[in-house]
């Protein structure tokens, strides 16, 4: 127990250095990011538990194999999110073919409605499910930046590192994504 507490105090970079020496330490990295990445993938694609486990397993193996590529040039969390994101994208076609929706937790929709520009009466009428449906209808390039920015609470630099896009492009995508989401909500639910 004392040993586990020690690992919790260690930074990501320290854990990477330890995992490179002994693979057992890699389990601590998995434990640290498993829940975060599961939530992220659920928000992004609403994959079922099996799909998420498959993606995470493959993603974590890739993280382990490529541990030496991580050199502190970016945050470890950005790097591991990037690998999981790419793994999810490559698996997404299968998921997309059978249709998908996305899943928002209790507080997620409040975070989003606070950011988007919709009329008060529309905002009051919105519920989690409606926002999730509107978000699911957005193109992936807007959906992913909105989720990373407002639900994962990543800054522009982190989103830029995760998606491998310039920070300026991220800012543009976020602005357009917010407008598109607001329009989507107004169009489908605003006047009814």
């Amino acid at each position, binding site marked *: 127990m004392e040993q586990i507490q020690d690992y919790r105090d260690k930074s990501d970079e320290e854990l990477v250095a330890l995992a490179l020496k002994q*693979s*057992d330490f890699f*389990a601590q990295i998995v434990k640290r990011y498993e829940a975060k990445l599961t939530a992220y993938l659920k928000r992004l694609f609403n994959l079922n538990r099996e799909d998420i*486990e498959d993606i995470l397993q493959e993603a974590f193996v890739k993280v*382990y*194999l490529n541990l*030496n590529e991580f050199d502190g*040039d970016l945050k470890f969390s950005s790097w591991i999110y990037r690998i999981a994101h790419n793994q999810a994208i490559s698996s997404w076609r299968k998921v997309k073919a059978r249709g998908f929706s996305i899943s928002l937790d209790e507080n997620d929709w409040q975070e989003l409605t606070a950011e988007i520009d919709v009329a008060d009466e529309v905002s009051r009428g919105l519920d989690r499910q409606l926002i999730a449906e509107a978000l699911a209808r957005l193109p992936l390039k807007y959906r992913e930046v909105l989720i990373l920015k407002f639900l994962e609470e990543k800054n522009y630099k982190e989103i830029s590192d995760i998606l491998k896009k*310039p*920070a300026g492009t991220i800012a543009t995508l976020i602005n357009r994504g917010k407008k598109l989401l607001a329009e989507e909500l107004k169009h489908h639910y605003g006047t009814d």
Partner: protein
Amino acid sequence: MEQISEQILNEIKQRRLSPRPRWQFLLLNSLWWLAAGLTVVAGGLSLALVINSFNTNDWAWAEYNGGWLSLAIGALPLAWLAAGLGLSLFGEYNLHHTKNAYRWKPIWILLTVLILTSGLAFGLERSGLAEELDEVLSPNLPSFLLAPTDQEGFWNKPERGLISGKVVEEKPDSVILEDASGKTWQVEFEQEPDAPTPEQRLGKKIKVFGSGDAKKFKAKQIKTCSLNKVGCHLETKTNNKKAAAGQVQGVKLNDKQPEKKEADKHDERKVDEERINKQKGPKDNSETNSADRE
């Protein structure tokens, strides 16, 4: 939650996986940088050949050959231009794959590559390397890779007063010229004191501006050309070197010569007097001798 970490650890151990060594990532990134560098250099060389083609073009005769625009288009070695631009795009592609390039917009990467390529091209052209490369490459390349102005026949437009070809015979006031199609022309000109000697012109390619009929051509202006070119192409950069070595280029034959300097006129008068004295000399001597005999 515990299960996934255990599953992954088991998989790592069962498959005996180990992290890929760091040098592989460094090597891959270095290879992308190297490829980007090489494409910039190759693109720079290609564009340097384009600039060289423009610089060595015979702009002074543009009016006889369809005007400046026509000559500018004709001076474009499209293959080199395409290669230069293609390599710049490939350079952008390579640079885009380096580790942190995603932080830059592709347009900025492309502009950077284009600036580097163009800068290198101007540097290579100024250093003379582009011209040397052109001299080596031109004779060995298929003609479609060359600029139209370097092609056989571009400067052979008798209806516009232009013919070009190889001097196959030299006479005191005319040359026999064989053009790209094998047709021979008798080109007449007024011999000028500083015109090339027969040895300097025979076997060389020349451009002639003038007028004439199907066989005879009266030259107003003759320019000698680079020997290594497939077509007839005026050398401008090596002009001074060649001129110093005795090869005169761009000789105006019928145009009014500029007034000679006073010193030159004085020298010529001196030479004439000496010539007259020499001619008089033997006559005077013979008179003297005959007087003595008498």
